């Protein structure tokens, strides 16, 4: 038998390995596979750390634990990081459920932060703080929503590739912030810090600077879960994500759902920007989002777009990050070590999904004998 196109002879033989899609899998087996992959990843990370630092494995893990739970400050910081990462992941999830690859979370957070900072500078001291905070909130959410709507509108109307579009929007936002800093900063330090952004700080709750942000995100988690699973909007998002044709057939306005969902996704990212600038750092630079817009994609995907599971996956990422940072400080190695560790863990989790979705069959011996 030969093929016209390849011009090659095709040999007929049964392959050693065949793969088929798995129909379903018990919940606990899936959980076990995922937990197993995390465990293997942690062992690999431990081995690498041992190789790099010469420390013994037990001490490696205890250093990581210390980096996260070492003292009260570290715990607060861990929870704060967890909340912010989770927040961005929650914001991106509605879009992902719709199979809209919004990798512009970073830009949407940044533009929200920028809108907040602009309000703080323009209106700070001229109107009472409570109304300033309100204006900051509204403008950051609007800015984020606009940053989400632009690619969504083009996707809805002309099917413009949203992955590439949202990716480019990140850098537009980043350079806008750089421009803002150059304009506002007169001292030549290329930073805009608490001195310039002196008004409109969000109140601290119970004297803890991180607490307000954590509470907001906790509430958002529950609301997002309800929105996605128990509301008409959430249902429409799922249908569009499964099949646009089906959605059209049952009378869902697909374009409207795409734009509305991305507006929500962008608006929530803008809210995170507001919390980052107004609630904690009171400064703005292109790194305020700290790559969370990208990491959150991984968090959301690893959790299969379930808001409560995302708490676990974002904890995993933050734990690795802060743990590896602690190791880096303790042994005086480069802090980029944590990126390598995070990468390894994610590779393992990504890889293990294969064993959940697919089944591997080896060539049977019986078939061989029958020949």
């Amino acid at each position: 038998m030969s093929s016209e196109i390849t011009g090659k002879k095709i040999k007929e033989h049964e392959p050693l390995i065949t793969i088929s899609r798995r129909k379903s899998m018990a919940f606990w087996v899936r959980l076990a596979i995922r937990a197993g992959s995390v465990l293997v990843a942690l062992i690999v990370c431990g081995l690498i750390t041992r190789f790099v630092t010469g420390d013994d494995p037990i001490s490696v893990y205890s250093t990581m634990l210390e980096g996260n739970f070492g003292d009260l400050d570290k715990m607060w910081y861990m929870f704060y990081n967890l909340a912010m990462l989770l927040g961005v992941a929650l914001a991106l999830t509605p879009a992902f459920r719709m199979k809209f690859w919004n990798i512009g979370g970073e830009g949407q957070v940044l533009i929200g932060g920028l809108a907040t900072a602009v309000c703080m500078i323009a209106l700070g001291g001229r109107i009472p703080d409570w109304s300033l905070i309100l204006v900051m909130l509204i403008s950051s959410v609007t800015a984020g929503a606009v940053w989400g709507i632009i690619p969504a509108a083009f996707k809805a109307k002309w099917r413009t590739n949203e992955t590439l579009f949202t990716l480019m929007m990140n850098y537009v936002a980043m350079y806008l912030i750089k421009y803002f800093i150059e304009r506002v900063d007169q001292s030549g330090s290329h930073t805009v810090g608490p001195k310039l952004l002196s008004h409109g700080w969000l109140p601290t709750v119970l004297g803890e600077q991180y607490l307000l942000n954590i509470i907001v995100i906790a509430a958002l988690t529950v609301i997002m879960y309800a929105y996605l699973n128990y509301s008409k909007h959430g249902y429409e998002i799922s249908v569009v994500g499964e099949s646009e044709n089906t959605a059209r057939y049952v009378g869902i306005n697909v374009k409207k759902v795409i734009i509305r969902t991305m507006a929500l996704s962008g608006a929530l990212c803008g809210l995170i920007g507001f919390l980052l600038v107004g609630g904690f750092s009171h400064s703005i630079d292109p790194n305020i989002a700290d790559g969370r817009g990208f990491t959150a994609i991984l968090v959301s995907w690893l959790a299969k777009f379930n808001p409560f599971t995302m708490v676990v996956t974002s904890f995993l990422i933050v734990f690795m990050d802060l743990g590896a940072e602690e190791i880096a400080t303790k042994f005086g190695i480069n802090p980029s070590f944590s990126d390598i560790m995070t990468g390894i863990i994610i590779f393992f989790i990504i890889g293990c999904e294969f064993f959940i979705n697919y089944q591997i069959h080896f060539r049977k011996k019986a078939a061989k004998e029958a020949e």
Partner: protein
Amino acid sequence: MEKVLLFLIRAVLQGTPLLYGATGEILTEKAGNLNLGIPGIMYVGAISGVIGGFFYQTSGSVNPFLAILIPLLSCLLGSLLTSLLYSFLTVTLRANQNVTGLALTTFGVGFGNFFGGSLIKLTNSSTPYLALTKISKAYQNFLPFGNQQLGGQHGFLIYLAVVLALIVSFVMKRTRVGLQLRSIGESPATADAAGINVTRYKYLSTCLGGMIAGLGGLYYIMDYSNGVWQNDGFGDRGWLAIAIVIFAVWRPHFAIVGSYLFGGLYIMYNYLNASMQVQPLLQMLPYVVTIIVLIFVSVRKKRENLPPAALGLSYFREDR
């Protein structure tokens, strides 16, 4: 006049790493794999070359031939291994390409900065960078006419970038292999039915693409920055390379023009009498231009200018 010429030369020098990245990414995307790990792979390529060069330079005398060969091979090896990791996860294990690519970028940039930082520590120097001057000289002086140009010394890697782009362009457009590769990017199921080995092509294009992109990192260190590695020095050039892929509507020979144009936009603020304040807006231009091209292409819907139809989707034979 001399200033204009100088600007043009600097634009080419600045555009070359982008051209490597864009050529590699086009090759990868044409087979349907959206490799967002390219920025990471370019970092890995750069640091692998630096590691090879560092150990060769510290080992004693420097032979110009080996000084080029060792970093080149270690750069290719490093970017090959990372591309293999990406291919294994997305092609064999059918993982989500966006997620895998982004994770690879996190990993690759971290990898580069970690080993870069560690090497800097090894040299016990107080400066936050590592200089491989001898190796860099070997790269820059490889061509006899390299050091007489206006923009200073430059080596063969600049010409290699153009040659590679033209080769990829030719193979893609004029050969059977290229036709089969493109058919996989448009519809892997159809290609599979026609007897084309989808897995092999995807592996090959991703790995070759990754290696080409890795060379961009090597060029940046050895030639453009005179052998100086600095953490995060490569910046967001990897993402700019992905932008050029769109700008060049997935054609490597357009990417040559696109890269030099974007390279020029990237450094234009040095040559305009604009104040510092406008500089970020000028640097933003490449991305804005890319967005406009992306919109324009999708509105016109000319078949040959659209992204490959199966871009970003994993292929599983039984899923038809």
